[in-house]
């Protein structure tokens, strides 16, 4: 590590204001604020808008079902649609998504069936879909752990010479965990094709961002790992899509990882069992409701004439169909065989576990006998 080599490298410092392509009034902007990123095409934006509408309708439906007691728990992503949808829209089929409990709508947008997603939150099983089918990892509950899985998967793809990219979703709170750091560092040292998308929704349950970090922006973390970092307006889907896509293709081209921070807001409670009135003000909530990411892109698309009433109505109708299908799926009562509890713990059968399975089978048979008699 000679002085000369050191001198050659200058860190790229993320912009001080979040990158933005469409402003709060739905007006496209560029110049310095856009940091060189171009507005996606109208078709792309319509596609993103469509996914956001579907996601929001779905999320509202699931929240309602949860209030009715059909789900054990549900962490809503209301207000975070620009981040969630961009994350998925930027990926190709061969890529992998590593989501958290928060990112249900990202799974939806990736094509996982509502029932397969929600069976986790309904309490049927720990994951309801086939990760390999959708190239989506199970929604991770232990915070930041999935970021390392993403790095490892991306590293494996790179070893194999595949052009697969992994995208890991993280919350602002999760960045405080040691695993977040280890993921950033491994990814950078290994030049793994991975994108870390931090959704800074400013709350980790009840803990506000200023108790979580003293950083100017979380994107600044990237500097300390020698990778690019971008601080983006997380409620501007145009900016989010532009930056995430660019990072995904940067990774695919062999340039290594990127950290992106999307500044957004968790409009709902942490989950249905949370009570935000205990820790945040209604003014704060109201202020952010005015910054709604869906309103913003809609205003822009309507203003620019790209979104016709027909298309809007069509999307709204599709959203209702989705909601109805979701209701139906969740109102049916699943049959889960308790004996399956023993079937997947090991691939190599274990005599002692089979004994326990037998035990439960007998117990169930006896209960049935009692019920039947």
């Amino acid at each position, binding site marked *: 590590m000679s002085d000369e080599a050191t001198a050659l490298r200058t860190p790229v410092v993320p912009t001080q204001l979040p990158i933005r392509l469409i402003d709060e009034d739905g007006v496209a902007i560029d110049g310095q604020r856009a940091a060189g990123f171009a507005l996606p095409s109208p078709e792309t934006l319509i596609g993103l808008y469509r996914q956001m509408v579907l996601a929001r309708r779905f999320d509202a439906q699931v929240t309602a079902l949860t209030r009715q007691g059909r789900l054990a728990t549900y962490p809503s992503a209301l207000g975070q649609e620009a981040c969630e949808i961009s994350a998925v829209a930027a990926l190709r089929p061969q890529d992998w998504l590593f989501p958290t409990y928060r990112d249900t709508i990202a799974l939806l947008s990736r094509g996982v069936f509502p029932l397969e997603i929600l069976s986790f939150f309904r*309490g049927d099983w720990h994951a309801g879909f086939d990760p390999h089918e959708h190239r989506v990892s199970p929604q991770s509950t232990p915070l930041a752990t999935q970021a390392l899985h993403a790095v490892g998967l991306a590293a494996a793809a790179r070893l194999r010479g595949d052009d697969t990219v992994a995208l890991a979703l993280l919350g602002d709170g999760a960045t405080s965990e040691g695993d977040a750091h280890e993921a950033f560092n491994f990814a950078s040292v290994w030049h793994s094709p991975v994108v870390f998308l931090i959704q800074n929704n400013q709350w980790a349950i009840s803990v506000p961002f200023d108790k*979580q970090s003293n950083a100017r922006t979380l994107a600044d973390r990237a500097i300390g790992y020698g990778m690019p970092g971008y601080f983006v307006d997380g409620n501007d889907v145009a900016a989010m899509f532009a930056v995430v896509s660019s990072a995904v293709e940067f990774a695919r081209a062999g340039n290594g990882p990127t950290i992106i921070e999307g500044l957004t807001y968790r409009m709902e409670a942490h989950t249905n069992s949370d009570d935000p009135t205990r820790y945040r003000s209604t003014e704060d909530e109201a202020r952010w409701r005015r910054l709604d990411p869906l309103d913003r892109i809609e205003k822009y698309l309507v203003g620019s004439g790209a979104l016709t009433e027909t298309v809007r109505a069509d999307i709204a109708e599709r959203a209702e169909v989705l909601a109805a299908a979701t209701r139906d799926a969740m109102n049916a009562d699943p049959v889960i065989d308790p004996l399956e509890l023993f079937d997947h*713990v090991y691939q190599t059968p274990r005599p*002692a576990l089979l004994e326990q399975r037998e035990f439960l089978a007998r117990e169930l048979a006896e209960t049935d006998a009692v019920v039947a008699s």
Partner: protein
Amino acid sequence: MTLLEHRLSPPSTAATAATAATSVSIAAALNAALRDALAVDPNVVVFGEDVGPLGGVFRVTDSLSAEFGESRVWDSPLAESGIVGTAIGMAMYGLRPVIEMQFDAFSYPAFEQITSHLAKMANRTRGRVTLPIVIRIPYAGGIGGVEHHSDSSEVYWTHTPGLTVVTPSNPADAYSMLREAIESDDPVIFLEPKSRYWAKESLTLPTSTASMLKAQVIREGTDVSLLAYGPTVKTALQAADLGATEGISIEVIDLRSLSPFDDETVGASVRKTSRAAVVHEAAQFGGYGAEVAARISERHFYYLSAPVLRIAGFDIPYPSPKLEEFYLPTAERILAALDTWEW
């Protein structure tokens, strides 16, 4: 004054003026214990994830940050190793941190700090650096929690020399044991049975029950010694009721302290009944019941008429909400187990 002596005298330092008995939940009793400890000892601090304004996800720290201020009760960044590691540094400076791991499985990131430092520092330094830290961990299942929210990981701690591991099963113990844990100069893993947080009893606070290090016979019986702790104490009592209807007299012991194990109380009971069983939620293989069974057999083999039985979780990860009822030990399952003995 040693802790054992202390338990013989009434609590010296009650900040809550004694009041008439009211209905108190475990969560409320823990809250009161924290409040009183904060009030009497300026070195006590409480921190962790969401323990401030929210009052913790189970409301155990409800209103404490408002009452004592942010320098006594505060929200830390979200990192369990960080919480335990910084608590260790604070204790080295004379504070007595009471910290929370939000759910059982979320204590795992702190595993190294707990096993390699918290448990070993006093021994490492020949007693010169003691770490009077309490780690409160809501544990076990029965609340319909999704994966990672229902683990029973007591063995990870009880097998680690240097830790004291206790778990209350009722509001009076919750109060008294938490006060005692905070006063202990040893690090204490304080396991709170989350399915029992809202179990209430009529109680006058402050209260002082037996030393947290002692087991308690909570129901006398002559045929079987049934050992339980935390969430399964209720199940054990139900089993005793059920047993009574079937003509089996079950003595129920609430272990309360998992490390140390109260050989004296348990031994006396087993020698009386000649049969013992232990019930817990954690997986059976290498579970806490293994130690209990091994120990009782070692010490009282020639008094035993039958093997010590374990009624425990299956050797599988804790199930999803819809399936947890098939996993959790029940009174019926306990009775069925006792039936397998040759009587």
